[in-house]
């Protein structure tokens, strides 16, 4: 479904991605793990078109994404919940959700809205509150809900568990599984490697801008190098 071939991305003169290959199949959960500065967020921003790759190719459903602007990539069905959630702080919860549906132009609006309120009842309670007044966990739910409004085929999630209380982390992971079971393909970036690998069908280990390892979630969980470097065993 999504295929990155030898993608290089840099910030001015600093090379952040040095030729990475990733393939995500339809219907699966893929995860990208790695330490700080490995290039995980850069990878997602490159897929979404916010950063332009220096070389390499990204295709989605067989179609190259080169020279397609970020809002049109969203319209093709790739949505991102970026690092730090980035809820619009001075828009109400409901307006934030409406903005998620901006590209979809009202298609399935009410059905999606109901689905999101069912998934995250707290958002319905707070729908007239400003986005910036929500707690971290609520903002994460809002950010995920907002992305779901666009009817995504592929959802990119950047560190959804970062800075959340443990109970919230397990709720978010449970939700990711539910979203995937509804047919949305997921590419998950996580520091919480153990939880992410358990959830994923396949995983990639990113180190210094290159893919170090890849395999099924199960394989990586039991890989000695991964255990040492990322699972703290």
């Amino acid at each position, binding site marked *: 479904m999504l295929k990155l071939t030898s993608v290089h991305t840099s910030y001015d003169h600093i090379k952040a991605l040095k030729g990475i290959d990733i393939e995500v199949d339809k219907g699966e959960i893929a995860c990208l793990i790695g330490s700080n500065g490995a290039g995980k967020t850069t990878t997602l921003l490159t897929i979404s078109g916010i950063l332009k790759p220096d070389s390499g190719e990204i295709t989605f459903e067989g179609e190259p994404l080169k020279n397609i602007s970020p809002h049109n990539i969203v319209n093709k069905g790739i949505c991102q919940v970026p690092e730090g959630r*980035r809820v*619009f702080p001075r828009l109400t919860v409901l307006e934030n959700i409406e903005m998620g549906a901006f590209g979809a132009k009202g298609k399935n609006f009410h059905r999606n809205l109901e689905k999101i309120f069912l998934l995250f009842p707290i958002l319905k309670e707070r729908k007239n509150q400003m986005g910036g007044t929500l707690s*971290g966990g609520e903002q994460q739910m809002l950010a995920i809900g907002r992305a779901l409004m666009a009817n995504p085929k592929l959802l990119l999630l950047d560190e959804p568990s970062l*800075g959340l209380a443990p109970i919230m982390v397990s709720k978010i992971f449970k939700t990711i599984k539910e979203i995937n079971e509804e047919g949305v393909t997921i590419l998950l970036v996580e520091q919480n490697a153990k939880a992410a690998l358990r959830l994923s069908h396949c995983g990639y280990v990113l180190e210094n801008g290159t893919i170090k390892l890849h395999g099924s979630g199960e394989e990586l969980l039991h890989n000695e190098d991964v255990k040492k470097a990322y699972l703290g065993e």
Partner: protein
Amino acid sequence: MLLQQLINGLTLGGVYAIIAIGYTMVYGILELINFAHGEIYMLGAYLAIIFLGLFTAMGLTATSLPLALILTAILTIIFCSAYGFTMEKVAYKPLRNAPRLSPLISAIGVSIFLQNYVMLTQGATDKVFPQRFGEAGFQFMNVNVTYLQAMIILVSGLLMFFLHLFIHKTRMGKAMRATAQDKTMAALVGINVDSIISVTFIIGAGLAAVAGIMVASYYGLVNYFIGYIAGIKAFTAAVLGGIGNIPGAMLGGIILGLVESTGAAYISSEYKDAYAFIILIVILLIKPSGILGKTTEEKV
């Protein structure tokens, strides 16, 4: 006496407010002080004179003055919006990722260019608005209000009201607010940031056009330099209210108009233009974020 000055101040303040909105909207989205915004207002005044002169020559003004005025307003708004749109595409868009000083210098360049363009094509002498509205008016609580003043206050009030509705109730307006808060995230939810920026310039220029028409008809005289001083005053109004904040620009404009007219009446009219600068200095010293300025709240 005081009430009379309040009416004069509201008239002036309404005009400042709708120019200031253009400044503040552009700042809200691009963090750019568009110093050429005042020139759009000046172009509006000139275009109004040209179009109304044309309709007068065609005899339309004699048969139906309201129709001639409405057509003049519509054409002026369309032309000014086109100027605003083009200005952004030519002078600011290529500098979107440049250091912040570059678009600012570009703005000053556009401002100088437009002033000289109008001076060359229209001459350096004052132009006269083809229609005099005179002192006809009505009495309101023992104060003379001319029809023109009432019209200016009404039109600026209505424009601000509709702009507020647009920003808060429409899909496009909400997308504008979203873009102002976080451009990258706006793109990630599927908002075309470039077209939002264009719409912002078009609306700002349209409002400045209306201000230009109103001032040209109020004072009856314009020259190619009026955009400069009006631009700085509207900028002051925007800073006073809190730059980037639309209700702030409205409030700032009205306060500035009231201060100017009461200051001119009670202190000295010689210093009419100085009050704006005094306010600008004081607000920058005491509360640089402005009256309604947003306190930056960040959640990590």
